[in-house]
């Protein structure tokens, strides 16, 4: 580090004139013409850069599709596209997937990609001592067999309708056995960008991979800068320190950007079902009337307006509205404080309730929590707010089921299956729902699958498991000249493959 | 032609008039003594001449020095005169030197600011001057810091700074008040010699008539900002006009009004206080973690006795251990070794109620009239504090009555009981302190420098009060003081301490008349004596 400082001292003395110009306040990028680099803002810094070893969305947001690729990948519209697997065959019983791999793919360190790497990656992810956060994705796999260097056969123990989609997750990317151990700090993948450096606490820098197997990226350099503070993010965008902030954390400022010709604001969809989660196992919420009362007490539109400045789509169940199988159930529990009071009275809580409302850090939760607390107060439910850090949130409500109410956005795609989990933090147990899920897993017929999805949606809405609030919007702000960024967020990623600057 | 002429000097600070029409003259090579008690304006007269007055001062009148009207000079011109034409020596040698600079640097600075000299030349002048004030290069290199010097040595440095450029006027403001009596004598001799060598004129400011009579050719007596009387020294004393001057003179040669002197034959009583083999040590330097800190033996194997009704003086210079001994006698600090027997009971071995009961027989009066009272309590509460020692609690009415009695006994009013200490003057406070000591009707009162902080006139009154109380109440005093004159006036027996040991003790008159120990002799010789000084001056005049 000291050496680096000395080096840069020499360099900067050499370019003292430029430095003086900088000090006197010329904006550094005013002088540059055709831009080939991009600086992307992100709210959270990834703890490490290995998508197979950590759950943090921030990891995928940096490396997914940029540095690492899986057998399949998820397109901007949520569809499953071929990636390292050029094509695949599925056996009629839905149990055997045979992937044909692309030729001539190399890792960034020059080693070749082949079927052994696929077997290594999948076996590693599902191994006993695996630290893969999404081990469930691989639960269906019975065995992985290398047929030849460019063919892999994956055998499932039971049919899995969404197996190809699962293989497109960041947690299922293909890594090389040689470099896998160091991926946390020095990720080596097959993607169009390779890792350059990481200034901890500030930014990660990627550079174009000239040897990419597909169409090379148009950008030469991409920097992901971590700015969690919404004010700082706002200031950095306004000062043009950032070129894009795909998931802007302060919706209240979007009107500012919209009014400014330098910026484009793009509102897209995410897979984030934002819910007021209820501890179904704890009195008085084990009484469906109380849960229904809560659902009637909450004015979703007011929450969207108040917390998200109108960005977001109301939902009536745990499903993404842009999905074809979505059922609009928002009318089932309309905003009706009187009815909520009546239901509470019926349940024997006419003289009020005091409950805890534990909120994780994101502003949808903190702001939404404040608004919902006041809405609940209007029907006689006193919600005592406790703001938690993520770590505490995971320890208390999520793992310990130590909560009454909480607000969180479930951002994993197609995750309605969590309602079938027995030990999940909702503490919701429904044999009817489990039966639907069971059948869904064994069904490959698309029409039937849609029906089952809709049954599942209705089931949890009928049971008023949680208060379903809204689908999180993706509010992207970027420089008006920057093109090719994803508007929607079917997976947590900033795929820069197609990004370019327009003159 | 006189060197200095102060003509109708008036000084106001804020809206308070301080000096009123002060006029003084001083001839070349002459020494002028300015005498007065605190608040007389003698120091501010000197500071007016130097023009180093506090903020908000307004000066009227004329000051002429060597034919130059100082009042007409600008501040920059005054800076140029200070140190070069007139130098000043201050009272407090401990704080008059910058603790962070070497003595050489501070003396040389006076040279540097006044002339185009190289630092080396300035250092040479500083060296010479330090030699002249009796700080030879071998023991006192220029690189010494003030904290490495004793009080007397520091005062020599201050004098060196004042005379380094041989100014025509040297002003010494109470230059020896903070020093021990033997040091005082040497510093005064030095000052006298230096001004004589340089042919400078001297203004010596003091509260002590004896010192001034010894040093000054002419004397001005000040009171409340005005000169009440002035003139040639011998002449002035011969024909003192002003009542204040006379009072001052009388107080300076205080003679006790005590009527009853204890006769040796009366001493058949058991002693009221008996101390044996008292040793006290203090830690010297910082506490050490792993080895025992060096210790300093403040009192070393001391024993003496006070008989009932007897007044004993404990005399010594600072550091002699007399106050440490007092704290042991008062059972404030346990000694390393030795016993203190009070009224036949072992005071130091006593505990709890027994100790409390013994304490009733021994009370104390301390030096500082301002620090000896909690400013937040009323006089009644303060004076009644030793009632804490009484087992059978007195009724509130009885308490009040005894407090009022004690106040009246020390010459205060009963109504003073409801006032706060800050409403009283220093002398009055010392009366209150005596009242507090008397309230338990003790057999022994320890007076630790109890009159040292008082002006001479007040001091005389307090001594009268003490003598009177001693006569009336049959109480003994352990009278601790550095001032031999005072001790001589009020005690029956005297104990002389030096460096933690008793060097001599005996009947007061006997010791003063025929001191046996060389240290006692030197103490007596160094003590300023008005009559002796006047006699010497008279003799000098006649010799001319």
């Amino acid at each position, binding site marked *: 580090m000291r050496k*680096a400082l000395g080096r840069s001292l020499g360099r900067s003395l050499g370019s003292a004139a430029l430095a003086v110009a900088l000090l006197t306040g010329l904006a550094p990028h005013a002088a540059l013409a055709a831009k080939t680099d991009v600086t992307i803002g992100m709210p959270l810094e990834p*703890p490490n850069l290995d998508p197979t070893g950590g759950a943090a969305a921030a990891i995928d947001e940096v490396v997914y599709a940029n540095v690492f690729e899986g057998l399949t990948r998820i397109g901007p519209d949520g569809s499953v596209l071929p990636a390292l697997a050029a094509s695949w065959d599925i056996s009629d019983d839905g149990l055997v997937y045979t992937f044909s791999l692309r030729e001539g793919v190399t890792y960034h360190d020059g080693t070749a990609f082949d079927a052994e790497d696929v077997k290594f990656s999948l076996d590693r992810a599902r191994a006993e001592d695996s630290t893969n956060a999404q081990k469930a994705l691989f639960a269906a796999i019975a065995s992985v067999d290398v047929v030849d260097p460019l063919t892999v056969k994956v055998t499932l123990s039971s049919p899995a309708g969404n197996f190809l989609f699962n293989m497109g997750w960041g947690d299922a990317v293909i890594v090389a056995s040689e470099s896998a151990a160091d991926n946390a*700090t020095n990720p080596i993948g097959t993607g169009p960008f390779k890792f350059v450096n990481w200034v901890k606490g500030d930014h990660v820098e990627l550079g174009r991979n000239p040897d990419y197997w597909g169409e090379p990226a148009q950008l030469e350099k991409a920097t992901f800068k*971590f700015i969690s503070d919404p004010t700082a993010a706002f200031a950095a965008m306004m000062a043009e320190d950032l070129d894009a902030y795909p998931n802007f954390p302060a919706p209240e400022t979007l009107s500012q950007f919209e009014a400014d010709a330098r910026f484009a604001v793009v509102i897209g969809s995410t897979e984030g079902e934002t819910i007021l989660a209820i501890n179904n196992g704890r009195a008085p919420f084990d009484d469906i009337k109380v849960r229904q009362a809560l659902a009637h007490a909450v004015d979703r539109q007011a929450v969207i307006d108040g917390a998200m400045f109108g960005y977001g789509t109301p939902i009536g169940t745990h499903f993404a509205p842009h999905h074809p199988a979505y059922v609009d159930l928002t009318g089932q529990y309309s905003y009706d404080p009187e009815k909520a009071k009546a239901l509470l009275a019926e349940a024997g809580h006419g003289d009020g309730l005091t409950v805890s409302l534990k909120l994780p*850090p994101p502003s949808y939760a903190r702001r939404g929590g404040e608004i919902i607390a006041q809405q609940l107060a209007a029907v006689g439910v006193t919600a005592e707010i406790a703001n938690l850090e993520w770590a505490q949130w995971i320890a208390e409500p999520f793992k310990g089921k130590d909560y009454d109410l909480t607000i969180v956005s479930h951002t994993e795609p197609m995750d309605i299956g969590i309602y079938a989990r027995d030990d999940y933090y909702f503490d919701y147990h429904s044999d009817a729902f489990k039966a639907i899920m069971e059948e869904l897993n064994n069904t490959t017929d698309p029409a039937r699958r849609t029906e089952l999805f809709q049954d599942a949606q209705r089931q949890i809405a009928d049971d008023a498991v949680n208060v379903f609030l809204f689908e999180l919007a993706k509010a992207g702000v970027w420089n008006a000249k920057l093109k090719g960024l994803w508007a929607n967020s079917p997976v947590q990623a900033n795929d820069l493959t197609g990004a370019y600057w327009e003159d | 032609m006189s060197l200095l002429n102060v003509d109708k000097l008036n000084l106001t600070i804020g809206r308070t008039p301080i000096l009123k029409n002060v006029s003084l003259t001083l001839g070349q090579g002459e020494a002028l003594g300015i005498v007065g008690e605190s608040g007389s304006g003698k120091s501010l007269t000197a500071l007016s001449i130097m023009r180093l007055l506090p903020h908000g001062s307004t000066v009227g009148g004329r000051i002429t020095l060597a034919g130059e009207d100082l009042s007409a000079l600008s501040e920059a011109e005054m800076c140029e005169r200070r140190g070069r034409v007139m*130098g000043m020596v*201050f009272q407090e040698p401990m704080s008059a030197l910058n603790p*962070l600079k070497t003595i050489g640097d501070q003396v040389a*600075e006076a040279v540097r600011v006044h002339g185009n000299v190289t630092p080396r030349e300035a250092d040479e002048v500083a060296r010479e001057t330090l030699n002249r004030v009796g700080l030879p290069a071998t023991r006192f290199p220029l690189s010494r810091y003030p904290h490495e010097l004793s009080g007397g040595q520091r005062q020599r440095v201050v004098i060196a700074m004042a005379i380094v450029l041989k100014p025509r006027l040297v002003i010494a403001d109470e230059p020896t008040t903070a020093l021990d009596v033997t040091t005082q004598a040497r510093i005064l001799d030095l000052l006298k010699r230096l001004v004589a060598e340089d042919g400078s004129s001297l203004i010596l400011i003091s509260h002590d008539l004896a010192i001034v009579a010894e040093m000054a050719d002419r004397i001005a007596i000040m009171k409340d900002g005005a000169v009440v009387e002035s003139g040639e020294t011998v002449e002035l004393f011969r024909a003192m006009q002003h009542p204040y001057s006379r009072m001052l003179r009388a107080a300076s040669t205080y003679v006790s009004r005590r009527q009853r002197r204890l006769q040796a034959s009366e001493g058949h009583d058991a002693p009221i206080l008996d101390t044996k083999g008292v040793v006290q040590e203090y830690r010297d330097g*910082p506490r050490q973690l792993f080895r025992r800190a060096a210790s300093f033996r403040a009192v070393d194997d001391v024993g003496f006795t006070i008989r009932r009704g007897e007044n004993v003086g404990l005399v010594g210079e600072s550091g002699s251990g007399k106050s440490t001994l007092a704290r042991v006698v008062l059972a404030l600090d346990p000694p390393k070794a030795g016993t203190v027997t009070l009224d036949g009971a072992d005071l130091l071995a006593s505990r709890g109620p027994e100790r409390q009961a013994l304490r009733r027989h021994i009370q104390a009066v301390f030096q500082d009239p301002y620090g000896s009272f909690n400013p937040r309590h009323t006089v009644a509460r303060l004076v009644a504090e030793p009632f804490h020692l009484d087992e059978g609690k007195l009724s509130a009415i009885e308490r009040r009555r005894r407090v009022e009695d004690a106040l009246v006994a020390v010459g205060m009013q009963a109504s003073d009981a409801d006032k706060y200490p800050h409403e009283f003057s220093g002398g009055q406070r010392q009366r209150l302190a005596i009242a507090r000591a008397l309230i338990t009707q003790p057999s022994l009162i320890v007076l630790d420098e109890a009159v040292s902080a008082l002006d001479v006139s007040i001091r005389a009154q307090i001594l009268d009060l003490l003598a009177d109380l001693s006569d009336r109440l049959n109480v003994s005093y352990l009278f601790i003081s550095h001032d031999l004159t005072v001790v001589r006036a009020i005690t029956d027996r005297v104990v002389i301490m030096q460096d933690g040991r008793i060097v001599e003790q005996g009947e007061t008159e006997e010791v003063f008349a025929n001191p046996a120990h060389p240290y006692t002799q030197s103490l007596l010789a160094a003590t300023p004596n008005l009559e002796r000084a006047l006699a010497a001056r008279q003799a000098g005049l006649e010799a001319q």
Partner: protein
Amino acid sequence: MGSFVAQRFVSLSATLLAASIVIFVVMEVLPGDPAAYMLGLNADPAAVAALREQLGLNEPVLQRYLNWVGGFFVGDFGLSYTYRVPVRELIADRLWVSVPLALMALALAIIIAFPVGIIAAAKRNSIVDAVIMGATQLGIAIPNFWFAMLLVLAFSVGLRWFSAGGFPGWDAGILVGMKSLVLPAVALALPQASILARVMRSALLDTLHEDFIRTARAKGLSSGQAIRHHAVRNALIPVMTIIGLQFSFLLAGAIIIENVFFLPGLGRLIFQAIAQRDLIVVKSVVLLLVAAVVIVNFTVDLAYAAIDPRLRRRAP
């Protein structure tokens, strides 16, 4: 001098030892499992258990304490739970931001405070003094994060003179790096400069009341010379005490400022680490900051001795 230093050093070590125990115990009782946090919402319990084993979280308490403190002595602070890199590297990287920032702010505070304090003392009870004292009162009263917001609004979003935050790294050039620290340093320095100016003024006034100033004036020094040659150095002792306290504050107190300007410094590291339950990082950074405070105070003690010859006497 030697024993003085040795003695101070022993008490310094004792403080650090006590601090390390306090920190370790606090971290032990802090709720939240780093392994669970790292693996997220849908994590498999088996994976969490595997990770706990891997991170050494299952060892006995005393063993972990000794490992940690022992590692500290050889500069091995362990491996960050979240970043999976040695904590030492992580801290070293952040120090390259935090220390320059603290030094810059301190320098700025001193550069502003000394002249201002001296002028106020020299012109005491004048209009100038009143204005300066009023301004410093205001400087102390303004919360630095709010002041930082105003600075960003004015100089980054408005005038675009400085970037709104972030740190390009020293590799981008010394001046570029320093430039990115200017606004944060100003925001940090303002209250410190105000405090320091007030301390400077009152220390000077106290010194000006000392007898040796009058002695100096009697030698013929002008009041300006007396202040320069005699008062300032003596007034430095209380001023240095405050500077010592401030440096540690600047190192740690930058937590909020580093967040406003999204600087990758120690403050943000610790904040992030607390939120992510990266306890090994929290422990080490806190201990490091405590060590910094203790060492700075130790240095200030030594500096006293350099300024004040009376303290040097203590040397046997």
